[in-house]
């Protein structure tokens, strides 16, 4: 009975969300059919979530090796695809790395990992809540908050500028001035939208590996080497 009540209060995803999810569910089911994946998948993911923290030194090395391997194997499909695959396979090791920066992208990847349990057919309240919590990372207020409102300012300020410019232009009959204002506004709108699209892409795929993962690893690697050499000299 308690379970039924929980299901009743859980927020319902919109129709289009469900349809997008079902596209992937169908693909995964089709792919799994006739294979042994299902037998091992759940256990494998469980183990991935619990890689040992005590192997800190191995993590840095392996992150770098896997980065090279990914570039060598899927690099032909472009930087975005390569970074995406690298983010995915790096995540279990990043989670085991207690020194890795816990920034907004880390928090989001963690939310995604939690939402994982509710991916396919799990409609329990916990699973639905995790999915809702993950969804919140894509709300404009959250994305804009991360950039000090600049994105939203450009996105909404642009069209307002276009409208105002056109109105003023028609009133005083200065076609050139009007088109200049409109062009400027449209440019701001396009620039704002373009920037926003990049930010959403980054959130969908994880953090940009090259500017984040490896920087952090190299910094740590450098620090470790410095400590080792400092220790040896002492």
């Amino acid at each position, binding site marked *: 009975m308690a379970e039924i009540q929980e299901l009743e209060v859980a927020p319902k995803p919109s129709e289009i969300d469900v349809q997008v999810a079902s596209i992937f569910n169908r693909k995964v089911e089709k792919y799994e059919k006739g294979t042994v994946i299902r037998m091992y998948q759940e256990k494998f993911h469980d183990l991935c979530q619990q*890689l040992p923290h005590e192997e800190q030194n191995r993590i840095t090395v392996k992150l770098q090796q896997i980065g090279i391997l990914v570039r060598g194997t*899927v690099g032909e499909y472009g930087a975005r695809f390569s970074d995406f695959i690298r983010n995915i396979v790096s995540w279990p090791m990043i989670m085991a790395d207690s020194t890795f920066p816990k920034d907004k992208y880390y928090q989001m990847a963690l939310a995604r990992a939690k939402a994982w349990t509710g991916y396919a057919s799990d409609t329990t309240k916990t699973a639905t809540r995790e999915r809702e919590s993950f969804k919140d990372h*894509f709300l404009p207020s959250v994305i804009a908050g991360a950039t000090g409102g600049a994105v939203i300012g450009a996105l909404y300020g642009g069209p307002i500028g276009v409208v105002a410019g056109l109105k003023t232009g028609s009133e005083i009959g200065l076609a050139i001035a009007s088109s200049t204002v409109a062009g400027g506004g449209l440019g701001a709108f396009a620039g704002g939208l373009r920037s926003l699209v990049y930010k959403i892409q980054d959130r969908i795929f994880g953090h940009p590996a090259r500017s984040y993962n490896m920087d952090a690893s190299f910094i740590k690697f450098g620090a470790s080497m410095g400590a080792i050499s400092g220790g040896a000299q002492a």
Partner: protein
Amino acid sequence: MQYPEELKLSVRISRYDFDMNTFNAATKNIITRVQLSPLSEEEKAGIYAELSLGLHKLVWTILIAHIPEEKLKEVTSQTKMTIDQYADCIDLALKNPETSKELHDMTMESLQEIDALLTKKGIPQKIAL
């Protein structure tokens, strides 16, 4: 070495700007269409979240399918997996020559289906800005 945030952003943007592959273009197109659509902010956020979860789930399924069964059997029979064992599994999966093509083809197929779904929902193809 720490780079200023603005510099990181500009380097990243130019890097993906030259990324003319279909995967990057397809996701950009979907996001732009959704962003310019009259859908509510909640619905847009929901689509992005499902897109992210779905792509991650699909990639993991394909990767696991390409880890040899004996290796999967060995690691999943343990209570813990070491970093080296995990890295070996990924290594074996990615070094299979079929894996990268399947990863790309399956993710692209999904993106094309989402694109078609948006059209079916009356969301127009993006306008040229």
